[in-house]
């Protein structure tokens, strides 16, 4: 296949991706709304209750109590270890449609199509397919969905699906409507192996931060709702895990993304040293990457500080996420800087050079 038809295929796959993500979004929402997730949440609630009791017993800590609690908890432990949320072979035994499984399946197809968009684009342009904002955002959406799928399987966090799908659909919508850029070469400054390292790290970190952000938003919503009183069993928020679990998941994902973001900034500095002659020059992108980094660092510190734990730390995390988003959209489109790859055909920098006296 030649470049033009590969580029064409990439654009078609993009449409497929968006459609599949939208359908997956609906299926995830259905799963949350009236799928088996509801029953599961109820059993989970019961399980949590049992565990709390057992802990109280353990706390009472007599010699006799040890055996009793041991057995109770052993039982819960086994149920707990079963992949409750992962589509298992026995799924559907309770009758009715399993929206969750359908959603994951659609999601996986969409993910594959998203991967296809990136691969065909890369093949069409013979370079790393993140040389402009369109390609960058496509890759970030892919990274976010990948991060979600990993979290969904590893930490049974399928409840995030609707939210991450919504984020991916919005991102890809913006990407196609406002940022679309046809396949072509990149400006010489981007022609470096560092693009493979620095931009990839930024993409992975941004994708993971997005999942952490979605989890944190859920956490804030749920903890606010809880503060007002017990959540009725049929409320949507009753079907997402406990605030404690949400908080922990958000932290886990942030702790994964933070070192990668740090590395992305540092590798960017190394690249800048090769391309622009300085490793740090307070370019708007550099400033906002730094601000984002600071904000996430503040969140991680706040998370371990009494008085800042919980909702205040979560708000810090959301501020950090807002900085991250602004770093993507605001900096590239509002400020003039070396990272202004938003322009369709950037020209090389021409410096005004002042000389005094004499002829050249």
């Amino acid at each position, binding site marked *: 296949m030649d470049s033009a038809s590969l580029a064409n295929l990439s654009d078609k796959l993009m449409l497929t991706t968006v459609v599949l993500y939208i359908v997956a979004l609906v299926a995830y929402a259905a799963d949350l709304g009236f799928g088996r997730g509801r029953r599961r949440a109820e059993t989970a609630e019961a399980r949590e209750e049992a565990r709390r009791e*057992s*802990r109280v017993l*353990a706390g009472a*800590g007599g010699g006799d109590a*040890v055996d009793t*609690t*041991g057995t109770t*908890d052993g039982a819960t432990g086994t149920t707990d270890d079963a992949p409750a949320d992962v589509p298992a072979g026995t799924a559907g035994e309770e009758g009715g449609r399993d929206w969750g499984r359908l959603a994951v399946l659609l999601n996986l197809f969409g993910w594959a199509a998203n991967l296809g968009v990136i691969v065909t684009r890369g093949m069409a342009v013979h370079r790393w397919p993140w040389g402009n904002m369109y390609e960058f955002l496509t890759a970030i959406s892919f990274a976010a969905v990948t991060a979600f799928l990993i979290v969904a399987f590893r930490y049974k966090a399928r409840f995030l699906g609707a939210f991450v799908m919504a984020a991916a659909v919005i991102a890809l919508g913006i990407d196609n409507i406002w940022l679309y850029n*046809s396949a*072509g*070469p990149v*400006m*010489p400054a981007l*022609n470096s192996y*560092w693009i493979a390292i620095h931009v990839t790290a930024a993409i992975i970190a941004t994708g993971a931060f997005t999942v952490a952000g979605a989890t944190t938003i859920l956490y804030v919503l749920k903890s606010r709702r809880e503060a007002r009183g017990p959540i009725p069993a049929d409320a949507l928020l009753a079907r997402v895990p406990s605030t404690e679990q949400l908080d922990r998941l958000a932290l886990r994902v942030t702790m994964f993304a933070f*070192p990668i973001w*740090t590395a992305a900034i*540092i590798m960017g500095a*190394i*690249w800048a040293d*090769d*391309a622009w002659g*300085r*490793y*740090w*020059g*307070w*370019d*708007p992108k550099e*400033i906002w990457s*730094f*601000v984002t980094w*600071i904000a996430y*660092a*503040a969140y*991680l*510190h706040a*998370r*371990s*500080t*009494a*008085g*800042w734990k919980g909702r205040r730390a979560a708000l810090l995390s959301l501020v950090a996420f807002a900085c991250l988003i602004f770093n993507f959209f605001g*900096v590239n489109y509002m*400020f*003039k800087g070396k990272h202004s790859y938003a322009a*369709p*055909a*950037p*020209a*090389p*920098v*021409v410096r005004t*050079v*002042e*000389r*005094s*006296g004499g*002829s*050249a």
Partner: protein
Amino acid sequence: MTDTQGTESATEAPAERRAPGDAPARPRGLGPLGWLRWGWRQLTTMRTALVLLFLVAVGAVPGSILPQRGEAPERVEQYLQDHRTAGPFLDKLKMFDVFASPWFAAIYILLFVSLAGCVIPRAAKHLQAMRARPPAAPRNLERLPQAASFETGRTPDEVLAEARKVLKRRRFRVDAADGAVAAEKGYLGETGNLVFHLALLGLLFALGLGNSFGYRGNVLLSEGKTFANSLSNYDQFKPGRQFDTDEMAPFTLTLDKFKAEYETKGDKRGQATDFSARVRFKDDPSAKERPYDLKINHPLKVGGAKVYLLGHGYAPKFTVRDAKGNIAFQDSVPFLAMEPQNLTSEGVIKVPDADPEQLAFYAILWPTAVASDDGKQIVSAFPAALRPVLTISTFTGDIGLDSGVPQSVYQLPALKDGRLKPLPGGSKLLEPGESFTLPGGKGTVTFDGLDEWISLSVNDDPGRVPALVAAVLAVFGVATSFLVRRRRVWVRAGAGEDGRTVVRVGGLTLGNPTAEFDEITAALSGARPGGEEPAPATGKKE
């Protein structure tokens, strides 16, 4: 500082930043020393560090919104002209030099002092802890976040010996005392955490080192010209505070040929795809000359300095003969791009040696000249020089170079005060090789052809390598501190009521408990025939 979770139970946690809760109460009637101590404690609390972190972030924001002198001085001037009232006020607040401003320095220095005040004592404590014995077993192991117990037919001593073996195999540091085994591992987590924070301090020092001892300069070099690295040859030069001219590497660099490649087809037509400058350089005047292909992302390292290709442009070559027919000027003249897309460029030619009257020219160059859509103007259709055409206008009089006032090579300031006057009929379109005989026998000007120029940035930053080392350490430090957690395990064995041995195992992990604990328990209880199934962990937190 990056501990993911604070104290898990009554057992002591590592030296943490003080939580605001236990921030020292405001002292009353303290001497100056007491106040100092109180201030220091305040500064090193986590709350202060968080506030300072927040301030650094907020303080950096104006640097992205307003133009900065360090990056774009011309845009600062523009801003000051456009905002007559707000401009000077913002300037007073150093808003155009945010990252060199005293207030920004105050924030980050306070932050780093706060950081040092926390991390350095903590590092000392950590070193001690690494040499100390694991803390003795708490009385009630079953109250720990991870706890298990089982009964076995083995004697307590056998069980404890087994525990030591199992834990040692898992690389725990093990200590035995009064009927219990205490074990601890995962120091690397705290080590990584400390390395990360110390590396940040190192990074700051490296930045300072580069700012003090380095230099940075810009120079424009046309094809066929040679640049020698000395202060007077730079167009712009920014030395560090402690910089000494003797430290400049005595290299020379000659530009043979610059080549720009552009996309020729499709909707990306005209976009640059590659820039490459063929240069020759010598480390010092007596050294052997070596060739180098200077590209963007591919700087030249020479004598401790690095040379970067930053930009490029056209430098048309001219020969000017004066009224007497003598060659008064013969050289290439760098032109500046008026628009970045297709590189329509402008420039001036100054001929102070023309006799009897000085000559000056202003010219516009279209690298690929075509008629505009309405057919009335000439425009450039492509950035490469496919069909270069230039228009030239002639001026006569006094250029003003003899007055000693420095002037830009791209401008004719003498036009404003009337010392230079346009020559009637002195405008003409020229293609390469064409000459124009000036009216009134004032001489001739020939457009000999087109060279290109490159702008180079030369810098020497002694902080570069230390900064890289610090940055790499920071990444490894933070990753390690997130991946490795400190874990403590205690095993106690004693005779039970029925003569069997009751074994209790307790575990305390910073952050979330790991599966390791259950594996250890399983290994202990199932290690020998006769060992019973363990009762799984009680009160297990996920």
